[in-house]
């Protein structure tokens, strides 16, 4: 499998045998390596075939690239929905940051006892799927003291609120691991001794120190928000997900072009996270399914 069988030997003899028998400490040999190649190739085919097919489909409309031109030049809904989703995504990130950074910092500094509760709440979005969350929001805010579903602005508030909730697990984990890497107690005391207030400590000391973690959480949130369909469609928002869904039912080649663009955007967001993750040694996080 992954190395020749050595059998019982004296511990001293092992060292030399091992180093000669296994030039690569964790490398495989023979059949094991062929098996690895087969598995890897099957994985590559499965991963890339849908992308290749979508790309081929998007280029089938003649003249070359016409499907992309149709979308980019002649379909105002493409740009407007993408801009709407980007805008909602950015607002989501700002609010999520304002809620999570002070909370995570405060819990680490002063309220370690509250930590399990905060962690529990940030994990709840995994337990409550988007379709249930939007169901609940629609029921809770369609009447009563806060009838948010009645107006356009109210629905915008709800969609941002729902996305902020969805971002909690990623933002909290990213920022909390960022805070773990720095000595917040010493930094806080140093800042205090120079007369900084709490707002200034958070803004000028803590935030710059968790920058990398924050940005990776932010891009993951952006990737989720831009493609999100369920919540946006039930709240009747002119977002990118519902737009692509409608296009997929109405047209043939244009949805392929938009899917490729959407995949490109996801790739960009994840690429930035991977790049940042490499320099900061933080693990890359993943979003749930939609």
């Amino acid at each position, binding site marked *: 499998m992954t190395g020749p069988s050595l059998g019982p030997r004296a511990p001293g003899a092992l060292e030399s045998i091992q180093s000669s028998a296994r030039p690569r400490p964790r490398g495989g040999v023979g059949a094991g390596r062929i*098996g690895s190649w087969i598995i890897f190739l099957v994985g590559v085919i*499965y991963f890339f075939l849908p992308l290749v097919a979508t790309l081929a489909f998007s280029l089938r409309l003649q003249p070359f690239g016409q499907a992309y031109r149709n979308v980019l030049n002649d379909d105002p809904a493409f740009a407007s929905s993408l801009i709407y989703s980007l805008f909602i995504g950015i607002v989501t990130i700002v609010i999520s940051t304002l809620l999570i950074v002070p909370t995570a910092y405060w819990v680490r500094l002063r309220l370690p006892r509250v930590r399990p509760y905060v962690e529990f709440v940030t994990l709840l979005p995994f337990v409550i799927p988007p379709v249930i969350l939007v*169901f609940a929001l629609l029921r809770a805010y369609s009447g009563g003291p806060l009838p948010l579903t009645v107006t356009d602005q109210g629905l915008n508030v709800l969609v941002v609120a729902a996305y902020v909730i969805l971002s909690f697990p990623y933002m909290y984990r990213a920022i909390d691991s960022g805070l773990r890497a720095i000595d917040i107690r010493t930094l806080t005391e140093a800042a205090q001794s120079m007369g900084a207030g709490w707002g200034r400590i958070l803004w000028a000391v803590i935030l710059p120190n968790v920058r990398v973690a924050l940005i990776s959480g932010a891009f993951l949130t952006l990737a989720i928000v831009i493609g999100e369909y369920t919540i946006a469609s039930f709240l009747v928002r002119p977002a990118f997900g519902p737009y692509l869904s409608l296009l997929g039912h109405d047209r043939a080649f244009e949805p392929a072009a938009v899917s490729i663009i959407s*995949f490109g955007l996801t*790739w960009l967001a994840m690429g930035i996270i991977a790049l940042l993750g490499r320099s900061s040694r933080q693990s890359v996080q993943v979003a749930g*399914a939609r």
Partner: protein
Amino acid sequence: MTVAPAAQNARGALPARPGRRFSTAWLGVVPFFLFSALFMVLPVGVLLAGSFEDPVSGAPTIQNYIDLSEPNIVEAYGTSIEISLVTAVVGGFFGFLLAYAVILGGLPRIFRTLLMTFSGVASNFAGVPLALAFTFTLGFQGLATKFLADNLGIDLYGKAIGFSLYTKLGLEIVYLYFQFPLMVLIMAPAIDGLKREWREASENLGASPREYWQHVALPILTPTLLGTMILLFGNSFGAQATAYQLTSGSIPLVTLLISNQISGDVFHNIGLGYALAMGMVVVMAVAIGIYARLQRTSERWLRS
């Protein structure tokens, strides 16, 4: 900043009086909990309360939960659970093999970096674009479908094979696209966490590689393996957009039933819709709960 006033008070307090410091420091986490309550806990509480109410009279009842035994609802739960189980086990198994292949299988190191980056993207490539991509691949007019028919004479949609992307099997193939990479992303660090000393120790004691895997590596990895499969289960159990886009609701899934209930009261019983939603939350809570438990167990082993 929202915590400023509370924090200002707390600073003056001495550590010797933890009681007082604690009470004011509490205010610092109020915005977070308030927001969560307003936009998550209370709304779901509305569903929960409604699920125990008679929709007409408002009297407390458990009738809504008894009504969950209607055949189409039982079928939806069955199908959702079946698809989630199949994709969790298959995705988990191949995801593990793939992670193993690139880490310990002797492939060039560059493949590992590529796979990890790609998995990060693929696990996020879900929903509408994913459903569309598979329509272009294995749909009736899809590239792969056409290729097989024109060049190899294999008609996937013909009577002999009877494949369709818009069925349970089709949906499972599509779901695997985000299940797989998630497994790779979680298993890779776990496989990496297997310490060299453990392997060397078992070899010193005369274990074959097979025995090492059977008695050392796999038992250590099992909590992560099981936990991740349960996470995958929850992942596909809660998915809605992909299935909706692909099948327009022709496959009975719990998420799609709930969608229909939101769009227009298809059960003519709001209370039943609430009970349906709460049933789903219970399944997800059990899955995530087990996952969190197993994760803690595996972290104890794999912490470096």
